[in-house]
């Protein structure tokens, strides 16, 4: 008995329907990749020398020297941690109103536009660029770093908070609105309970990021542990640099685990 239905089935192409175009695009990508690889110049002697330097670096890691530069390291650490905490607190405090304003479902259009533009500006400028600019304005040191991280926090938290508010369960807000509640009361009773756990989670996550970033922006002069690291590397003190990196890794891991534990606890 032969089945009246076909026995073979292939998934129809989804994006580019025309077979000729599909092949052309695939061939084009391969040709571009080959040509692009050809233009990358690799100087093998420099790679070899770099490997040697890298080896010294690894040796420094294996024998980290916490002691001889401990004062610089601990100063840098305290600076970094202060910078991280203050910038996260200030950044989140500013982000909350901006995030509420940038949520289309609860803010009027003109406020929405303003808040979205603030977010866009903050997100478009990478931390290092802002740091260079602010260091030029306010001089070397952690104040520039604090401002940089606060500014970057606004773009991050406000955007994610706004997106989160836009995805709340509308029915709950509708129910609160139908009782005759004012706008502030709707925000407080219907929106806040729905987004609060995530806002806390995001803030803890941002605390993580800010600490890591504080190490990076220190290199361009914004103070903190990054500045100490930069000094150690330019003095060829790889054992001190190794110690600093180990400390950074340790703190990031502790922050990561404790924040993910806290977030789980909050759900």
């Amino acid at each position: 008995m032969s089945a009246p239905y076909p026995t073979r089935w292939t998934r129809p192409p989804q994006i580019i329907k025309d077979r000729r175009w599909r092949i052309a695009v695939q061939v084009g990508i391969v040709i571009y990749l080959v040509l692009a690889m050809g233009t990358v110049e690799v100087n093998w002697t420099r790679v070899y020398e770099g490997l040697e330097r890298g080896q010294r670096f690894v040796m420094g890691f294996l024998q980290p020297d916490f002691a001889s530069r401990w004062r610089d390291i601990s100063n840098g650490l305290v600076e970094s941690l202060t910078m991280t905490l203050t910038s996260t607190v200030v950044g989140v405090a500013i982000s909350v109103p901006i995030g509420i304003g940038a949520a289309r479902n609860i803010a009027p259009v003109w406020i929405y536009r303003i808040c979205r533009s603030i977010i866009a500006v903050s997100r478009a400028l990478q931390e290092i660029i802002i740091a260079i600019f602010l260091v030029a304005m306010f001089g070397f040191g952690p104040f520039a770093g604090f401002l940089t991280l606060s500014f970057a926090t606004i773009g991050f938290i406000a955007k994610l908070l706004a997106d989160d508010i836009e995805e709340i369960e509308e029915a709950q807000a509708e129910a609160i609105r139908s009782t005759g509640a004012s706008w502030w009361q709707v925000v407080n009773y219907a929106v806040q309970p729905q987004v609060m756990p995530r806002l806390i989670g995001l803030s803890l996550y941002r605390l993580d990021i800010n600490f890591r970033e504080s190490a990076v922006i220190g290199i361009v002069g914004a103070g903190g542990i990054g500045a100490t690291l930069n000094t150690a590397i330019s003095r060829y003190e790889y054992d001190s640099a190794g110690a600093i990196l180990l400390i950074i890794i340790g703190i990031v891991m502790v922050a990561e685990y404790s924040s993910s534990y806290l977030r789980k606890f909050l759900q």
Partner: protein
Amino acid sequence: MLILQSLSKTYKTGDTALSEVSLTVPKGQIMGLIGPSGAGKSTLIRCINRLVEPTGGQVLLNDVDLVGLGKRELRQQRRRIGMIFQEYALVERLTVMENVLSGRLGYVPFWRSYLRRFPAEDITRAYALLDRVGLLQHADKRADALSGGQRQRVGIARALAQDPELLLVDEPTASLDPKTSRQIMRLLIEICAERGLPAIVNIHDVPLAQQFMQRIVGLRAGRVVFDGSPDLLTQDALTTIYGEEDWNAMRKGDEEQTAAEADARDRISALAR
């Protein structure tokens, strides 16, 4: 008393949800609103408290026209209209008590609601309502810790906390099993009778509507096509509302299906445990 005068709603997309609906709901009457999906039942009750803005007509609640009120007056008038929702629409991360007290939001200033410092009489009233719906011992639980029937009871208590002059009820039993549905309907009916409250109840379930409503209005494509007591809801009337179908067979089928679904739900939740 609620009077709707040629209430109309056309959405921006050009869809006409309601055209020229005129109805009068006297004090104490419980009116069931039936009709196929998309007939405008939800739009109708949302036009009354203006969660949806009507495009024409009047809504008179005890002689106040709700259409065309400014923001402030609208909020004050909304306090007089309690609303009960299909999926309960409780704020799940707030406690039961906070949910009930949120019915008082229109009456208290922001700082009081923010600090959860409600006036003593509001708190007493909230406790009394929770007692009335049988949830007094659950007051401090989070709303998402309750079962479906319990949540809908909280929804009822929240609406009553407003001390309303009208209840709008949107598919109160759509996500409940048949038995709980009947309990909830009975509770609603009792409460309306106790307070002489008029109510408009959107309802999918025709047998349930016939069992509990004093009056039934059938909506089809935004127009009232039936208005009368449940006894008058004959096969012909149902056909004008819903279109051609074998209603008696369907009723029987419905019962079987809900029973089967409830059974399957029980078994799945037993597995999940």
